[in-house]
């Protein structure tokens, strides 16, 4: 009987064989590279990265839309969706590596102005779309527009508005309308006593960052002046705003809100507990799927009136084309085609993506003016006017790296949370002002 002998692995044999393997593995790409790169050069590609949308159907629509455009133009299109919290880190990684996707979709604060030196000037593209689809709204101009040289470093895609969502039957039951901040506090206290508190987060996330800015502005306060040069937070108006939040927290909310993420307020109203939240319509759309009875009772209205104005924060979305992108022309062509089909994008987002260009979705807007899934059908009609009451984080000035850092450090949320949890309104505002001034001073020397 023959037995198979295993050859002894000597040190020399081990080195020889691993050496050959490493050499083969190392040289394979070198040998094949010229052929591969030629093949890649022949096939045009466009790579896009953007956040995973809160409306999953929109992502499905967008992926198909991009793929179809690619097929029509013999361009291979890939779309990557990443969690919203990873967008900033991803952008930083691509910029520092000088490699990545061709088209980068930003969400929320940061982006266009921060990465300005890394992005292709898209002024002619934005102006051509503006000529075709009407004037860019005020919030649109806060996104990607550079006031110093009147150029655009990003294509403004849409903004996400933050209307009031309230349980109509509960508010009717106390004979009140949550149309002003004072009414929300007074009515909210009554409803909290009945087990239906108001739910506005005081945690570290995007929703409170947006909502509390809206409250601050509606009280006449702001982080910066119109020119974006000075911090103007330390004002009587800001102190009054913080005092109001302290009262709202004590009278109409529960301590839960201090730890909330962006999903928490949606869950709060969808579960039937909360009487009011301030949120994009994703909360309502989720309720339509999970709890039809509650969804039918959720109504939408403009942001609450404050002593000075009626305004609310909004999240901005925009596309930038990297200077290192291999297919800049394809990216521009895609954005042009996308703008021409923007009504379809609007419908696919179920009215979540709000238009930047005045006539790109002519009024009455589909879905919002007549939503067959809502009772009554015009329940969301008020959102058509949201460009009149929505503003980006830099309001009343431009958004720039300093206002982004104020946003990213949750300074306004924390100012309100400090006031709500026992720190005096004056001290809370003073603390936040010091934080903002340090950030502004730093960026003014660098920007």
């Amino acid at each position, binding site marked *: 009987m023959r037995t198979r002998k295993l050859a002894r692995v000597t040190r*020399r044999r081990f080195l020889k064989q691993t050496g050959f393997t490493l050499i083969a593995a190392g040289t394979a790409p070198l040998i094949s590279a010229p052929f591969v790169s030629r093949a890649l050069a022949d096939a045009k590609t466009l790579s896009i990265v953007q956040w995973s949308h809160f409306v999953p159907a929109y992502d499905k629509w967008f992926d198909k839309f991009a793929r179809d455009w690619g097929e029509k133009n013999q361009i291979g299109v890939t779309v990557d969706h990443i969690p919203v919290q990873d967008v900033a880190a991803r952008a930083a990684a691509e910029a520092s590596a000088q490699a990545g996707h061709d088209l980068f979709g930003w969400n929320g604060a940061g982006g266009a102005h921060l990465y300005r030196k890394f992005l292709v000037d898209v002024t002619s593209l934005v102006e051509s779309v503006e000529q075709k689809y009407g004037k860019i709204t005020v919030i649109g101009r806060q996104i990607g527009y550079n006031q110093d040289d009147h150029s655009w470093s990003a294509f403004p895609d849409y903004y996400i508005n933050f209307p009031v969502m309230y349980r109509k039957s509960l508010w009717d039951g106390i004979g009140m309308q949550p149309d002003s901040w004072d009414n929300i506090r007074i009515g909210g206290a009554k409803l909290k006593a009945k087990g239906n508190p108001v739910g506005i987060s005081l945690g570290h996330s995007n929703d409170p960052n947006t909502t509390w800015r809206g409250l601050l502005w509606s009280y006449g306060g702001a982080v910066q002046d119109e020119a974006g040069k000075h911090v103007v937070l330390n004002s009587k108006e800001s102190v009054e705003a913080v005092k109001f939040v302290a009262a709202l927290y004590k009278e109409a909310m529960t301590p839960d809100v201090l*730890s909330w993420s962006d999903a928490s307020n949606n869950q709060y109203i969808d579960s039937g507990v909360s009487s009011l939240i301030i949120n994009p319509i994703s909360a309502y759309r989720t309720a339509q799927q999970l709890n039809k009875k509650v969804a039918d009772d959720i109504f939408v209205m403009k942001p609450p009136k404050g002593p000075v104005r009626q305004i609310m924060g909004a999240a901005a979305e925009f596309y930038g084309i990297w200077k290192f992108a291999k297919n800049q022309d394809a990216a521009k062509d895609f954005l042009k085609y996308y703008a021409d089909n923007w009504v379809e994008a609007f419908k696919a987002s179920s009215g979540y993506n709000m238009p930047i260009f005045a006539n790109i979705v002519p009024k009455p807007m589909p879905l919002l003016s007549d939503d067959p899934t809502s009772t009554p059908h015009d329940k969301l009609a008020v959102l058509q006017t949201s460009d009149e009451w929505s503003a980006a984080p830099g309001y009343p000035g431009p958004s720039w790296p300093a206002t982004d850092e104020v946003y*990213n450090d*949750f300074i306004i949320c924390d100012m309100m949370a400090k006031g709500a949890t026992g720190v005096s309104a004056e001290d809370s505002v003073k603390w936040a002002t010091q934080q903002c001034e340090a950030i502004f001073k*730093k960026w003014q020397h660098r920007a």
Partner: protein
Amino acid sequence: MVTIAEPVRKQPVSRFRFILDRRDVLGALFVAPAILYVFLLVGVPFLLAVYYSISAYTIYDPSWRFVGLSNFEQVIQNPVFLDTLGNTFLFTFGSQLLGLILGKFGALLLLRPFPGRKIVRALIILPWAVPIALASVAWEWMFDSLYSVINWTLIALGVIDRSNAPNWLGNPHLAMLCVIVVNAWRFFPFAIVVFLAGITSVPQDIIDAATVDGAGFWRRNYQIILPMILPIVAIGLIFGIVFTFTDLSVVYLLTNGGPVNATSVLGFEGFQVGIVSGDVSHGAAISLFMLPVLFLVVIGMLRFIRRREI
């Protein structure tokens, strides 16, 4: 006639073969990839961090301008940073202490023979092996203000009522406790492995002799076994401290630094400022504050180990 065998002609041997026969050359060759790996993935980023921290480099203006130590000066002047530094110490040493206690008891339990011990030993590694993003989702639900399974259980047992339920991630002290517990939960399987390795290396005759001399369970564990395994435990602790001090994942995933920065740690702060806000130079300066602390801790512990080595 006697036939003398022809002498075997020696094959010419290349000099390369002799070089590879030298232990010192071969040793260096084998260690080289590891050194290269550490240099590329630790050394280069560290040097880059130093480079950025003394410059005015931002994503907005990615040009290098020397500013000396002014970034460090500005960072120290920020009261939020000092709170963050304090939080980092609390988070690191709190979770290490808790992890060590759990690890010690876990190891003692796993040393005793019982049915299914091998399965339990395998399962106990899970917290270490499960991706933290996944584990954090589970912990987030356990600490959720609306759906906390811990609160639900306590309410069901009649220990608390709904109105007095702990606001785990909303109360600054409880939020810090939560991130410490989650990190200790991640660390304790590693501590178990370290303790198990240490305890099993203690010669049985020493333990037997101590038992004959009348040493009970506590005396055997804390006056004989623990001093003998301290060097190996200290090495494990160095790993734990270094990884925790530089970690941001638990805080990032569970609290985002809230409420009101109560759980913000250096890694998280550096990430927010340097990456999210694009102020790379200040982000690097914040991150580099970890260096002297870790350096002192590691040097101190290594000296301690050297003195204790038997």
